[in-house]
Protein backbone atom coordinates (compact mmCIF):
# COMPACT_ATOMS: atom_id res chain seq x y z
CA UNK A 1 0.00 0.00 0.00
CA UNK A 2 2.88 2.36 0.70
CA UNK A 3 6.38 2.52 -0.62
CA UNK A 4 8.45 2.61 2.57
CA UNK A 5 10.07 -0.73 1.87
CA UNK A 6 12.07 0.75 -0.95
CA UNK A 7 12.89 3.78 1.18
CA UNK A 8 14.09 1.53 3.97
CA UNK A 9 16.22 -0.49 1.66
CA UNK A 10 17.67 2.76 0.45
CA UNK A 11 18.38 3.61 4.07
CA UNK A 12 20.30 0.37 4.58
CA UNK A 13 22.14 0.97 1.33
CA UNK A 14 23.09 4.52 2.35
CA UNK A 15 24.45 3.16 5.62
CA UNK A 16 26.45 0.50 3.85
CA UNK A 17 27.96 3.03 1.44
CA UNK A 18 29.04 5.28 4.31
CA UNK A 19 30.65 2.34 6.11
CA UNK A 20 32.44 1.18 2.96
CA UNK A 21 33.83 4.69 2.42
CA UNK A 22 35.29 4.58 5.91
CA UNK A 23 36.74 1.12 5.27
CA UNK A 24 38.34 2.52 2.14
CA UNK A 25 39.72 5.48 4.08
CA UNK A 26 41.10 3.14 6.69
CA UNK A 27 42.84 0.97 4.07
CA UNK A 28 44.27 4.01 2.28
CA UNK A 29 45.58 5.33 5.59
CA UNK A 30 47.75 2.22 5.93
CA UNK A 31 49.70 3.16 2.81
CA UNK A 32 49.35 6.85 2.38
CA UNK A 33 48.48 9.85 4.51
CA UNK A 34 48.64 13.52 3.52
CA UNK A 35 51.02 14.24 6.43
CA UNK A 36 52.72 12.31 9.18
CA UNK A 37 49.97 12.06 11.83
CA UNK A 38 52.30 12.01 14.85
CA UNK A 39 55.17 14.26 13.80
CA UNK A 40 54.98 17.58 15.61
CA UNK A 41 55.68 20.72 13.70
CA UNK A 42 56.04 23.84 15.80
CA UNK A 43 56.02 26.02 12.70
CA UNK A 44 52.48 25.05 11.81
CA UNK A 45 50.65 25.06 15.13
CA UNK A 46 46.85 25.59 15.02
CA UNK A 47 46.52 26.57 11.39
CA UNK A 48 43.01 26.89 10.04
CA UNK A 49 41.76 24.65 7.25
CA UNK A 50 43.23 25.78 3.96
CA UNK A 51 43.81 24.39 0.52
CA UNK A 52 47.08 26.28 0.02
CA UNK A 53 48.91 24.71 2.95
CA UNK A 54 47.47 21.29 2.19
CA UNK A 55 45.96 21.04 5.68
CA UNK A 56 42.35 20.61 4.57
CA UNK A 57 41.07 20.25 8.12
CA UNK A 58 43.73 22.48 9.70
CA UNK A 59 46.37 21.53 12.27
CA UNK A 60 46.24 20.86 16.00
CA UNK A 61 48.11 22.42 18.90
CA UNK A 62 51.26 20.47 17.99
CA UNK A 63 51.08 21.39 14.33
CA UNK A 64 49.90 17.90 13.30
CA UNK A 65 47.55 17.59 10.34
CA UNK A 66 43.98 16.98 11.58
CA UNK A 67 42.88 15.11 8.45
CA UNK A 68 45.81 12.71 8.66
CA UNK A 69 45.06 12.02 12.29
CA UNK A 70 41.39 11.43 11.55
CA UNK A 71 42.32 8.98 8.79
CA UNK A 72 44.76 7.21 11.06
CA UNK A 73 42.09 7.12 13.79
CA UNK A 74 39.66 5.32 11.47
CA UNK A 75 41.53 2.04 11.78
CA UNK A 76 41.66 2.42 15.55
CA UNK A 77 37.92 2.98 15.74
CA UNK A 78 37.18 0.06 13.45
CA UNK A 79 39.49 -2.34 15.22
CA UNK A 80 38.14 -1.46 18.64
CA UNK A 81 34.48 -1.49 17.69
CA UNK A 82 34.69 -4.70 15.69
CA UNK A 83 36.71 -6.63 18.25
CA UNK A 84 34.66 -5.38 21.20
CA UNK A 85 31.42 -6.31 19.45
CA UNK A 86 32.84 -9.70 18.48
CA UNK A 87 33.94 -10.33 22.06
CA UNK A 88 30.60 -9.36 23.56
CA UNK A 89 28.62 -11.18 20.86
CA UNK A 90 30.51 -14.47 21.07
CA UNK A 91 30.37 -14.72 24.86
CA UNK A 92 26.90 -13.20 25.16
CA UNK A 93 25.31 -15.37 22.47
CA UNK A 94 26.97 -18.46 23.93
CA UNK A 95 25.61 -17.63 27.38
CA UNK A 96 22.18 -16.67 26.12
CA UNK A 97 21.73 -19.72 23.92
CA UNK A 98 22.99 -21.97 26.67
CA UNK A 99 20.65 -20.39 29.22
CA UNK A 100 17.65 -20.38 26.91
CA UNK A 101 18.21 -23.91 25.67
CA UNK A 102 18.87 -25.62 28.99
CA UNK A 103 16.49 -23.50 31.06
CA UNK A 104 16.10 -24.19 34.77
CA UNK A 105 18.91 -23.36 37.17
CA UNK A 106 21.54 -22.65 34.53
CA UNK A 107 19.18 -20.19 32.92
CA UNK A 108 18.38 -18.56 36.21
CA UNK A 109 22.02 -18.18 37.23
CA UNK A 110 23.12 -16.76 33.88
CA UNK A 111 20.25 -14.34 33.59
CA UNK A 112 20.58 -13.07 37.16
CA UNK A 113 24.22 -12.35 36.36
CA UNK A 114 23.14 -10.45 33.26
CA UNK A 115 20.57 -8.52 35.31
CA UNK A 116 23.29 -7.44 37.71
CA UNK A 117 25.55 -6.24 34.91
CA UNK A 118 22.53 -4.38 33.54
CA UNK A 119 22.29 -2.50 36.82
CA UNK A 120 25.33 -0.47 35.71
CA UNK A 121 24.76 2.14 32.99
CA UNK A 122 26.94 1.02 30.06
CA UNK A 123 29.25 4.02 29.89
CA UNK A 124 29.79 3.88 33.65
CA UNK A 125 30.52 0.19 33.60
CA UNK A 126 33.05 0.78 30.84
CA UNK A 127 34.60 3.69 32.78
CA UNK A 128 34.96 1.60 35.90
CA UNK A 129 36.37 -1.39 34.08
CA UNK A 130 38.95 0.96 32.55
CA UNK A 131 39.69 2.33 35.98
CA UNK A 132 40.41 -1.16 37.26
CA UNK A 133 42.28 -2.49 34.22
CA UNK A 134 44.25 0.66 33.44
CA UNK A 135 44.25 2.77 30.31
CA UNK A 136 45.21 0.73 27.31
CA UNK A 137 43.75 0.09 23.87
CA UNK A 138 43.29 -3.65 24.60
CA UNK A 139 41.45 -2.81 27.76
CA UNK A 140 39.02 -0.60 25.85
CA UNK A 141 38.07 -3.65 23.80
CA UNK A 142 37.66 -5.69 26.96
CA UNK A 143 35.60 -3.03 28.73
CA UNK A 144 33.16 -2.50 25.85
CA UNK A 145 32.98 -6.24 25.23
CA UNK A 146 31.99 -6.89 28.83
CA UNK A 147 29.31 -4.20 28.59
CA UNK A 148 27.89 -6.00 25.55
CA UNK A 149 27.78 -9.51 27.05
CA UNK A 150 24.46 -9.14 28.91
CA UNK A 151 22.84 -7.40 25.92
CA UNK A 152 23.63 -10.24 23.54
CA UNK A 153 22.81 -12.83 26.19
CA UNK A 154 19.37 -11.37 26.74
CA UNK A 155 18.46 -11.12 23.06
CA UNK A 156 19.66 -14.59 22.10
CA UNK A 157 18.03 -16.18 25.15
CA UNK A 158 14.72 -14.49 24.37
CA UNK A 159 14.80 -15.67 20.75
CA UNK A 160 15.74 -19.24 21.72
CA UNK A 161 12.96 -19.45 24.28
CA UNK A 162 10.44 -18.10 21.78
CA UNK A 163 11.59 -20.70 19.25
CA UNK A 164 11.69 -23.62 21.68
CA UNK A 165 7.92 -23.72 21.96
CA UNK A 166 7.48 -24.00 18.20
CA UNK A 167 5.99 -27.05 16.57
CA UNK A 168 8.90 -27.66 14.26
CA UNK A 169 11.29 -28.06 17.18
CA UNK A 170 8.99 -30.58 18.81
CA UNK A 171 8.65 -32.34 15.48
CA UNK A 172 12.44 -32.56 15.17
CA UNK A 173 12.69 -33.92 18.70
CA UNK A 174 10.06 -36.55 18.09
CA UNK A 175 11.97 -37.57 14.99
CA UNK A 176 14.87 -38.39 17.24
CA UNK A 177 17.11 -35.41 16.51
CA UNK A 178 19.82 -34.86 19.11
CA UNK A 179 20.33 -31.70 21.13
CA UNK A 180 23.32 -30.46 19.21
CA UNK A 181 21.64 -31.20 15.93
CA UNK A 182 18.52 -29.23 16.88
CA UNK A 183 20.63 -26.41 18.20
CA UNK A 184 22.77 -26.18 15.11
CA UNK A 185 20.15 -26.82 12.45
CA UNK A 186 16.98 -25.40 13.90
CA UNK A 187 17.68 -22.88 16.64
CA UNK A 188 20.80 -20.98 15.65
CA UNK A 189 19.78 -20.23 12.04
CA UNK A 190 16.52 -18.80 13.29
CA UNK A 191 17.96 -16.30 15.74
CA UNK A 192 20.32 -14.65 13.29
CA UNK A 193 17.93 -11.89 12.24
CA UNK A 194 17.65 -10.13 15.62
CA UNK A 195 21.35 -10.74 16.25
CA UNK A 196 22.47 -9.16 12.99
CA UNK A 197 20.48 -6.05 13.84
CA UNK A 198 21.93 -5.99 17.34
CA UNK A 199 25.47 -6.40 16.00
CA UNK A 200 25.01 -3.48 13.65
CA UNK A 201 23.73 -1.26 16.45
CA UNK A 202 26.46 -2.49 18.81
CA UNK A 203 29.13 -1.50 16.32
CA UNK A 204 27.77 2.03 16.35
CA UNK A 205 27.53 2.20 20.14
CA UNK A 206 31.06 0.84 20.45
CA UNK A 207 32.39 3.76 18.45
CA UNK A 208 30.53 6.17 20.73
CA UNK A 209 31.74 4.39 23.87
CA UNK A 210 35.33 4.27 22.67
CA UNK A 211 35.32 7.94 21.80
CA UNK A 212 33.79 8.83 25.17
CA UNK A 213 36.41 6.78 27.03
CA UNK A 214 39.24 8.30 25.00
CA UNK A 215 37.72 11.75 25.48
CA UNK A 216 37.86 11.22 29.25
CA UNK A 217 41.47 10.14 28.92
CA UNK A 218 40.67 6.53 29.76
CA UNK A 219 40.85 5.03 26.28
CA UNK A 220 43.40 5.20 23.50
CA UNK A 221 46.44 7.07 24.78
CA UNK A 222 48.22 9.87 22.93
CA UNK A 223 50.21 10.21 20.76
CA UNK A 224 48.24 7.43 19.00
CA UNK A 225 45.37 9.29 17.37
CA UNK A 226 41.79 8.30 18.06
CA UNK A 227 38.81 10.48 17.36
CA UNK A 228 38.00 10.58 21.06
CA UNK A 229 41.41 11.65 22.26
CA UNK A 230 41.68 14.20 19.44
CA UNK A 231 38.53 15.79 20.85
CA UNK A 232 39.95 15.55 24.32
CA UNK A 233 43.06 17.53 23.43
CA UNK A 234 40.98 19.90 21.30
CA UNK A 235 39.11 21.02 24.43
CA UNK A 236 41.96 23.28 25.44
CA UNK A 237 42.13 25.05 22.12
CA UNK A 238 38.68 24.68 20.57
CA UNK A 239 37.56 28.17 21.54
CA UNK A 240 39.97 29.74 19.08
CA UNK A 241 40.60 26.72 16.84
CA UNK A 242 37.17 25.11 16.48
CA UNK A 243 38.28 22.92 13.54
CA UNK A 244 40.23 20.77 15.97
CA UNK A 245 36.92 19.81 17.60
CA UNK A 246 34.55 19.90 14.67
CA UNK A 247 36.17 17.50 12.19
CA UNK A 248 36.98 14.57 14.50
CA UNK A 249 33.43 14.84 15.84
CA UNK A 250 31.99 14.78 12.35
CA UNK A 251 34.05 11.68 11.62
CA UNK A 252 32.39 9.96 14.59
CA UNK A 253 28.88 11.13 13.74
CA UNK A 254 29.05 9.99 10.12
CA UNK A 255 30.34 6.51 10.83
CA UNK A 256 27.92 5.96 13.72
CA UNK A 257 25.13 7.23 11.49
CA UNK A 258 26.23 4.73 8.85
CA UNK A 259 25.92 1.83 11.28
CA UNK A 260 22.59 3.15 12.57
CA UNK A 261 21.19 3.50 9.06
CA UNK A 262 22.33 0.00 8.24
CA UNK A 263 20.86 -1.38 11.45
CA UNK A 264 17.56 0.42 10.91
CA UNK A 265 17.29 -0.77 7.34
CA UNK A 266 18.29 -4.32 8.21
CA UNK A 267 15.71 -4.45 10.94
CA UNK A 268 12.93 -3.60 8.55
CA UNK A 269 14.21 -5.95 5.88
CA UNK A 270 14.97 -8.94 8.10
CA UNK A 271 12.19 -8.85 10.61
CA UNK A 272 9.34 -6.38 10.63
CA UNK A 273 8.28 -7.60 14.06
CA UNK A 274 11.41 -6.09 15.54
CA UNK A 275 10.48 -2.59 14.47
CA UNK A 276 9.90 -1.41 17.98
CA UNK A 277 13.23 -2.53 19.36
CA UNK A 278 15.73 0.26 19.44
Amino acid sequence: MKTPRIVRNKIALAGLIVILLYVLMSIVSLFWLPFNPVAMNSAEVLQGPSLASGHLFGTDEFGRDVLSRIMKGTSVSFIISVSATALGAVIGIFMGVWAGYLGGKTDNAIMRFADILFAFPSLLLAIFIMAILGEHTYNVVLAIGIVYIPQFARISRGSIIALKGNEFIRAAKSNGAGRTYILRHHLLPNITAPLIVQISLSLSTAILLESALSFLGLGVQPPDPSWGNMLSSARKVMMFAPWTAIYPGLAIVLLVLGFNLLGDGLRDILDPRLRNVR
Partner: protein
Amino acid sequence: MGKYIVKRLLSLIPVLIGVSLIVFFMVRLIPGSALQMYMGTQVEATPEQMEQLKRLFGEDKPIPVLYIEWVGDIMRGDFGYSLRTGRPVLPDILSRLPISLELTLYSLVLALLIGIPLGILSSLKQDTFGDFLNRIIGLIGLSLPQFWLAALMVIAFSSSQGWIPMGNYVSLFENPLQNLKMFFLPSLAIGFGFAAVVMRYTRNSMLEVLQMDYVRTAKAKGLPKRKVIIIHALKNAILPVITVTGFNAGYLLGGSIVIEEVFALPGMGRLALYAINQRDYPVIQAIMLVIASLFVLVNLVTDLVYAMADPRIRLVDEEK
Protein backbone atom coordinates in the same frame (compact mmCIF):
# COMPACT_ATOMS: atom_id res chain seq x y z
CA MET B 1 -1.03 -1.75 43.64
CA GLY B 2 0.35 -2.21 47.16
CA LYS B 3 1.05 -5.87 46.58
CA TYR B 4 2.73 -5.06 43.29
CA ILE B 5 5.08 -2.53 44.91
CA VAL B 6 6.08 -4.98 47.64
CA LYS B 7 6.74 -7.69 45.09
CA ARG B 8 8.94 -5.41 43.00
CA LEU B 9 10.80 -4.15 46.08
CA LEU B 10 11.60 -7.69 47.14
CA SER B 11 12.92 -8.51 43.69
CA LEU B 12 15.48 -5.70 44.09
CA ILE B 13 17.28 -7.41 46.95
CA PRO B 14 19.12 -10.10 44.94
CA VAL B 15 20.12 -7.52 42.30
CA LEU B 16 21.52 -5.16 44.94
CA ILE B 17 23.43 -8.03 46.56
CA GLY B 18 24.85 -8.93 43.17
CA VAL B 19 25.83 -5.33 42.50
CA SER B 20 27.65 -5.09 45.83
CA LEU B 21 29.48 -8.35 45.10
CA ILE B 22 30.66 -7.09 41.74
CA VAL B 23 31.80 -3.76 43.14
CA PHE B 24 33.58 -5.52 46.00
CA PHE B 25 35.41 -8.03 43.87
CA MET B 26 36.23 -5.75 40.98
CA VAL B 27 38.36 -3.55 43.16
CA ARG B 28 40.06 -6.68 44.44
CA LEU B 29 41.05 -7.54 40.87
CA ILE B 30 43.54 -4.71 40.85
CA PRO B 31 46.98 -6.28 40.86
CA GLY B 32 48.56 -5.94 44.31
CA SER B 33 51.81 -4.73 42.80
CA ALA B 34 50.03 -1.73 41.35
CA LEU B 35 48.86 -0.88 44.82
CA GLN B 36 52.29 -1.23 46.33
CA MET B 37 53.63 1.00 43.63
CA TYR B 38 50.93 3.46 44.50
CA MET B 39 51.74 3.28 48.19
CA GLY B 40 55.40 3.78 47.35
CA THR B 41 54.64 7.18 45.93
CA GLN B 42 52.82 8.11 49.10
CA VAL B 43 55.57 9.31 51.35
CA GLU B 44 53.68 9.21 54.57
CA ALA B 45 50.38 7.44 54.94
CA THR B 46 48.15 8.70 57.72
CA PRO B 47 46.79 6.12 60.16
CA GLU B 48 43.32 6.48 58.59
CA GLN B 49 44.72 5.76 55.17
CA MET B 50 46.63 2.74 56.42
CA GLU B 51 43.47 1.52 58.08
CA GLN B 52 41.51 2.10 54.88
CA LEU B 53 44.04 0.14 52.86
CA LYS B 54 43.79 -2.71 55.30
CA ARG B 55 40.04 -2.63 54.97
CA LEU B 56 40.31 -2.80 51.23
CA PHE B 57 42.98 -5.40 50.91
CA GLY B 58 43.26 -6.75 54.44
CA GLU B 59 45.41 -9.81 54.15
CA ASP B 60 44.69 -10.89 57.67
CA LYS B 61 41.01 -11.83 57.13
CA PRO B 62 39.29 -14.24 54.73
CA ILE B 63 37.50 -12.53 51.86
CA PRO B 64 33.90 -13.49 52.81
CA VAL B 65 34.45 -11.92 56.23
CA LEU B 66 35.81 -8.77 54.57
CA TYR B 67 32.77 -8.59 52.32
CA ILE B 68 30.32 -8.93 55.17
CA GLU B 69 32.14 -6.31 57.20
CA TRP B 70 32.13 -3.98 54.21
CA VAL B 71 28.39 -4.40 53.62
CA GLY B 72 27.78 -3.89 57.34
CA ASP B 73 29.74 -0.62 57.25
CA ILE B 74 27.75 0.60 54.27
CA MET B 75 24.47 -0.20 56.01
CA ARG B 76 25.64 2.08 58.81
CA GLY B 77 26.42 4.79 56.27
CA ASP B 78 30.17 4.31 56.45
CA PHE B 79 31.49 4.23 52.90
CA GLY B 80 35.13 4.39 53.96
CA TYR B 81 37.79 7.08 53.60
CA SER B 82 39.48 8.60 50.60
CA LEU B 83 43.01 7.30 50.08
CA ARG B 84 44.08 10.74 48.94
CA THR B 85 42.44 13.16 51.31
CA GLY B 86 41.68 10.86 54.22
CA ARG B 87 38.19 12.34 54.40
CA PRO B 88 35.08 10.15 54.67
CA VAL B 89 33.67 9.37 51.22
CA LEU B 90 29.94 9.68 51.82
CA PRO B 91 29.64 13.44 52.48
CA ASP B 92 31.65 14.18 49.33
CA ILE B 93 29.31 12.04 47.27
CA LEU B 94 26.18 13.46 48.87
CA SER B 95 27.23 17.03 48.17
CA ARG B 96 27.74 16.23 44.46
CA LEU B 97 24.80 13.93 43.96
CA PRO B 98 22.21 16.73 43.47
CA ILE B 99 24.06 18.12 40.44
CA SER B 100 24.19 14.77 38.67
CA LEU B 101 20.58 14.04 39.56
CA GLU B 102 19.43 17.43 38.34
CA LEU B 103 21.26 16.97 35.05
CA THR B 104 19.74 13.53 34.59
CA LEU B 105 16.19 14.62 35.41
CA TYR B 106 16.43 17.84 33.43
CA SER B 107 17.72 16.00 30.36
CA LEU B 108 14.96 13.42 30.76
CA VAL B 109 12.28 16.13 30.87
CA LEU B 110 13.77 17.90 27.83
CA ALA B 111 13.99 14.63 25.90
CA LEU B 112 10.36 13.78 26.60
CA LEU B 113 9.20 17.31 25.79
CA ILE B 114 10.98 17.18 22.45
CA GLY B 115 10.55 13.52 21.57
CA ILE B 116 6.88 12.86 22.32
CA PRO B 117 5.32 15.75 20.35
CA LEU B 118 7.65 15.18 17.38
CA GLY B 119 6.90 11.46 17.46
CA ILE B 120 3.16 12.12 17.43
CA LEU B 121 3.51 14.61 14.62
CA SER B 122 5.61 12.19 12.60
CA SER B 123 3.09 9.39 13.04
CA LEU B 124 0.20 11.60 11.93
CA LYS B 125 2.10 12.57 8.79
CA GLN B 126 3.38 9.08 8.12
CA ASP B 127 5.48 8.71 4.98
CA THR B 128 5.37 12.38 4.10
CA PHE B 129 8.56 14.32 3.57
CA GLY B 130 8.28 15.80 7.07
CA ASP B 131 8.07 12.33 8.57
CA PHE B 132 11.09 11.22 6.56
CA LEU B 133 13.06 14.28 7.66
CA ASN B 134 12.05 13.65 11.26
CA ARG B 135 13.29 10.09 11.11
CA ILE B 136 16.60 11.10 9.56
CA ILE B 137 17.12 13.79 12.18
CA GLY B 138 16.22 11.16 14.76
CA LEU B 139 18.91 8.84 13.44
CA ILE B 140 21.45 11.67 13.45
CA GLY B 141 20.44 12.39 17.04
CA LEU B 142 21.23 8.78 17.92
CA SER B 143 24.64 9.14 16.30
CA LEU B 144 25.81 12.31 18.05
CA PRO B 145 28.31 11.80 20.84
CA GLN B 146 26.96 13.75 23.80
CA PHE B 147 30.33 15.25 24.67
CA TRP B 148 30.88 16.50 21.14
CA LEU B 149 27.50 18.17 21.08
CA ALA B 150 28.43 19.71 24.42
CA ALA B 151 31.73 20.93 23.03
CA LEU B 152 29.98 22.52 20.05
CA MET B 153 27.62 24.26 22.46
CA VAL B 154 30.53 25.61 24.45
CA ILE B 155 32.09 26.98 21.25
CA ALA B 156 28.82 28.49 20.04
CA PHE B 157 27.52 29.95 23.30
CA SER B 158 30.71 30.88 25.10
CA SER B 159 30.01 34.58 24.70
CA SER B 160 26.35 34.37 25.76
CA GLN B 161 26.05 35.40 29.38
CA GLY B 162 24.87 32.72 31.80
CA TRP B 163 24.32 29.83 29.40
CA ILE B 164 27.63 28.12 29.97
CA PRO B 165 28.25 27.28 33.66
CA MET B 166 32.09 27.01 33.54
CA GLY B 167 32.93 27.01 37.20
CA ASN B 168 30.33 29.42 38.58
CA TYR B 169 27.78 26.86 39.71
CA VAL B 170 24.58 28.14 41.31
CA SER B 171 22.27 25.67 43.04
CA LEU B 172 18.58 25.34 42.28
CA PHE B 173 17.65 26.66 45.71
CA GLU B 174 19.84 29.74 45.56
CA ASN B 175 18.56 30.99 42.23
CA PRO B 176 16.20 28.65 40.38
CA LEU B 177 16.04 30.69 37.20
CA GLN B 178 19.76 31.12 36.81
CA ASN B 179 20.30 27.48 37.71
CA LEU B 180 17.81 26.24 35.12
CA LYS B 181 19.36 28.51 32.49
CA MET B 182 22.86 27.30 33.24
CA PHE B 183 21.82 23.66 33.25
CA PHE B 184 19.84 23.97 30.04
CA LEU B 185 22.61 23.40 27.50
CA PRO B 186 24.31 20.60 29.45
CA SER B 187 20.96 18.86 29.86
CA LEU B 188 20.13 19.33 26.20
CA ALA B 189 23.49 17.83 25.25
CA ILE B 190 22.76 14.80 27.43
CA GLY B 191 19.13 14.41 26.40
CA PHE B 192 19.29 15.12 22.66
CA GLY B 193 20.11 11.56 21.65
CA PHE B 194 17.47 10.23 24.00
CA ALA B 195 14.94 12.65 22.53
CA ALA B 196 15.60 10.93 19.21
CA VAL B 197 14.95 7.53 20.80
CA VAL B 198 11.73 8.80 22.39
CA MET B 199 10.63 10.24 19.09
CA ARG B 200 11.18 6.98 17.24
CA TYR B 201 9.36 4.96 19.87
CA THR B 202 6.46 7.39 20.08
CA ARG B 203 6.14 7.41 16.31
CA ASN B 204 6.15 3.64 15.92
CA SER B 205 3.91 3.09 18.88
CA MET B 206 1.42 5.74 17.69
CA LEU B 207 1.36 4.19 14.23
CA GLU B 208 0.47 0.88 15.78
CA VAL B 209 -2.14 2.32 18.14
CA LEU B 210 -3.81 4.44 15.45
CA GLN B 211 -4.70 1.19 13.68
CA MET B 212 -6.48 -0.15 16.74
CA ASP B 213 -10.22 -0.72 16.89
CA TYR B 214 -10.66 1.46 19.96
CA VAL B 215 -9.36 4.46 18.07
CA ARG B 216 -12.06 3.82 15.48
CA THR B 217 -14.59 3.53 18.32
CA ALA B 218 -13.48 6.89 19.68
CA LYS B 219 -13.90 8.45 16.25
CA ALA B 220 -17.32 6.83 15.84
CA LYS B 221 -18.34 8.50 19.10
CA GLY B 222 -17.84 11.86 17.47
CA LEU B 223 -14.74 12.87 19.41
CA PRO B 224 -12.69 15.52 17.63
CA LYS B 225 -9.37 14.33 16.24
CA ARG B 226 -7.34 16.13 18.87
CA LYS B 227 -9.17 14.32 21.66
CA VAL B 228 -8.98 10.98 19.91
CA ILE B 229 -5.22 11.35 19.71
CA ILE B 230 -4.54 12.75 23.15
CA ILE B 231 -7.05 10.80 25.21
CA HIS B 232 -7.42 7.51 23.38
CA ALA B 233 -4.31 6.95 21.30
CA LEU B 234 -1.57 8.57 23.35
CA LYS B 235 -2.60 6.89 26.61
CA ASN B 236 -1.84 3.56 24.97
CA ALA B 237 1.03 4.65 22.78
CA ILE B 238 2.93 6.04 25.74
CA LEU B 239 3.37 2.59 27.35
CA PRO B 240 6.42 1.44 25.35
CA VAL B 241 7.87 4.93 25.74
CA ILE B 242 7.76 4.48 29.51
CA THR B 243 9.62 1.19 29.23
CA VAL B 244 12.33 2.61 27.01
CA THR B 245 12.70 5.60 29.32
CA GLY B 246 13.54 3.31 32.22
CA PHE B 247 15.92 1.39 30.03
CA ASN B 248 17.75 4.54 28.97
CA ALA B 249 17.87 6.31 32.31
CA GLY B 250 21.33 4.80 32.69
CA TYR B 251 22.39 6.35 29.40
CA LEU B 252 21.36 9.76 30.75
CA LEU B 253 23.07 9.13 34.09
CA GLY B 254 26.22 8.03 32.27
CA GLY B 255 25.96 11.02 29.97
CA SER B 256 25.84 13.38 32.90
CA ILE B 257 29.30 12.18 33.96
CA VAL B 258 30.94 13.10 30.67
CA ILE B 259 29.01 16.33 30.34
CA GLU B 260 29.91 17.50 33.83
CA GLU B 261 33.50 17.25 32.65
CA VAL B 262 32.87 19.38 29.55
CA PHE B 263 30.93 22.09 31.39
CA ALA B 264 33.03 21.88 34.57
CA LEU B 265 30.03 21.15 36.80
CA PRO B 266 31.04 19.80 40.21
CA GLY B 267 28.91 16.64 40.10
CA MET B 268 29.55 12.99 40.82
CA GLY B 269 31.01 12.40 37.39
CA ARG B 270 33.86 14.79 37.98
CA LEU B 271 34.45 13.21 41.38
CA ALA B 272 34.55 9.80 39.72
CA LEU B 273 37.03 10.89 37.06
CA TYR B 274 39.21 12.57 39.64
CA ALA B 275 39.14 9.44 41.77
CA ILE B 276 40.01 7.28 38.78
CA ASN B 277 42.95 9.47 37.85
CA GLN B 278 44.15 9.39 41.44
CA ARG B 279 43.53 5.65 41.85
CA ASP B 280 41.36 6.48 44.87
CA TYR B 281 39.66 3.09 45.07
CA PRO B 282 37.35 3.60 48.06
CA VAL B 283 35.83 6.60 46.28
CA ILE B 284 35.48 4.67 43.00
CA GLN B 285 33.86 1.79 44.84
CA ALA B 286 31.37 4.04 46.61
CA ILE B 287 30.38 5.93 43.46
CA MET B 288 29.87 2.70 41.56
CA LEU B 289 27.64 1.39 44.29
CA VAL B 290 25.61 4.60 44.54
CA ILE B 291 25.07 4.92 40.79
CA ALA B 292 24.12 1.27 40.30
CA SER B 293 21.67 1.47 43.20
CA LEU B 294 20.19 4.65 41.75
CA PHE B 295 19.77 2.99 38.39
CA VAL B 296 18.10 -0.03 39.96
CA LEU B 297 15.78 2.36 41.79
CA VAL B 298 14.96 4.21 38.56
CA ASN B 299 13.98 0.92 36.98
CA LEU B 300 11.68 0.24 39.90
CA VAL B 301 10.08 3.65 39.51
CA THR B 302 9.65 2.99 35.78
CA ASP B 303 7.88 -0.28 36.51
CA LEU B 304 5.57 1.47 38.95
CA VAL B 305 4.78 4.26 36.50
CA TYR B 306 4.08 1.63 33.87
CA ALA B 307 1.78 -0.23 36.22
CA MET B 308 -0.05 3.01 36.93
CA ALA B 309 -0.48 3.70 33.21
CA ASP B 310 -1.51 0.18 32.27
CA PRO B 311 -4.29 -1.30 34.41
CA ARG B 312 -3.79 -4.70 32.80
CA ILE B 313 -0.40 -5.11 34.51
CA ARG B 314 -1.38 -3.89 37.91
CA LEU B 315 -4.72 -5.67 38.16
CA VAL B 316 -3.47 -9.03 36.96
CA ASP B 317 -0.91 -8.89 39.72
CA GLU B 318 -3.44 -7.97 42.33
CA GLU B 319 -5.82 -10.71 41.41
CA LYS B 320 -3.16 -13.36 41.86
